[in-house]
């Protein structure tokens, strides 16, 4: 589900459940979801391993 579709469904559901306080929070969460999904989460190498490797003879 795209964040845009999720946002629409979430707002409809909050309205149906009569919890108006949720609307600004859903907007805030949608922005965070976009950030989370757009980030490159490649695991960095361990600095300890890198140090060790750098001291090994080439």
């Amino acid at each position, binding site marked *: 589900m795209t964040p845009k579709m999720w946002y629409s469904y979430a707002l409809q559901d909050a309205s149906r459940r009569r919890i108006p306080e949720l609307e600004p929070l859903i907007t805030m969460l949608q922005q965070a979801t976009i950030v989370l999904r757009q980030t490159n*989460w490649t695991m960095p190498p361990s600095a300890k391993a890198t140090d060790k490797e750098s001291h090994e003879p080439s």
Partner: protein
Amino acid sequence: MNKVSITTLVAKLRSGQGSSLDLVNSCLDAIEKQDDVLNAFITVFAEDARRQARNADAAISDGHDIGPLHGIPISVKDMIDVRGTRTTAASHVRADHRASTDAALVTRLRQAGAIVIGKCNLHEFAFGTTGYESAFGFTRNPHSKQRIPGGSSSGSAVSVATNMAIASIGTDTGGSIRIPASACGVVGLKPTHGEVSLSGVVPLAPTLDHAGPLTSTVADAQLLFELLRQTPDEAPKKCQKTLDQTHFSVPRKYFFDKMDKDIASIFEHTVHTLEACGSVVTDVEIPHATEIPAVYLHTQLPEAALSHQLTLKTRPELYSPSVRARLELGRYVLAEDYLLAQHGREVLRREVDNALVKSEALILPTLPIVPPMLGDDSLTVDGETESVRALTLRLTQLFDLTGHPAISLPCGRIDGIPIGIQLVGRRHTTHELLTLAKQVESMINV
């Protein structure tokens, strides 16, 4: 603020220079005089505390020594079970609760001779950083009564800052020990995740929840941590370095982007003090720092919603509206986003581990802002308006995500309001972090 260490107090009790009953009565007097205004306590065990104090004094007279906390009055956040009493979590949802047994950490405190003097106010279910939302009314900052004391362990910090208790135990899911410690001018320790048992503690977000002490001195925090810990250090003990052998790293990017200028100035002064002692202080980068709030939200919200699944369904009207809304929000987080956040969390953990390879500790302020006025929801920093919640979590929540131990200690004041500095150590080396923090405390003593 009482700066006499617990060890000194216990030594005095043992040598007959004072009594536990005097100590308990002194705390109860402080509660009587100040708590109508400050509202730090939900429940006070006055008569039971006096009875235990008399027993402690009699034990000393009879030559019996219970332990390192013999006769010392300690408060606990009202998220922590004390046998036969209510654990309200500052919510109407738990009005009928009674604990049948002590939390594991309370058992440890009692085994060491401590007297539980009362249970402290908090932000409802520890789900907030201000201490403003509580079924028992908000807590005030003792240093500026129109300001927040920080939260969620608001009453715990206030009880220690005002001598209503000698020490307190709080919980920390995004900064809830360190934030009020900073705002109230006391020491607050969040150990490595899992080091202190959470059995008998009301959960908020289990993979983020920690318990730890709030105290007047780092030595007291160390004493309590060693008594409460359930796991040994994983890392082999090293010869502890002195300050002139210590390398600190400052994670500036993101963490210092929205910071009160006076706090930044006090921080730089502290860094210069450490450099004058021979410490090396260099900058370090946490590459994914900007993404911390996104990872935190997608972790904490669904875990909190799960913790409250039953009562959100059966008794939603008993929550305060803002806490209920945030709990409900957690039910909208998709499973794929929670799992992606857990991967992001592993990346952040590696980045903090890497930042600590060449240094003994990260150093940064605990809060980027002076504690806001009661009821304020947002603040403007450097021309940008931001929610108080986001600002107060900004420098602390990363270390709940990654599990690294972190401690806040007082490092200065702005217009009489305390400011805290935060030290972050390698995982499973909380003991070493505390030993380092004692040295820092002695250099920047305010």
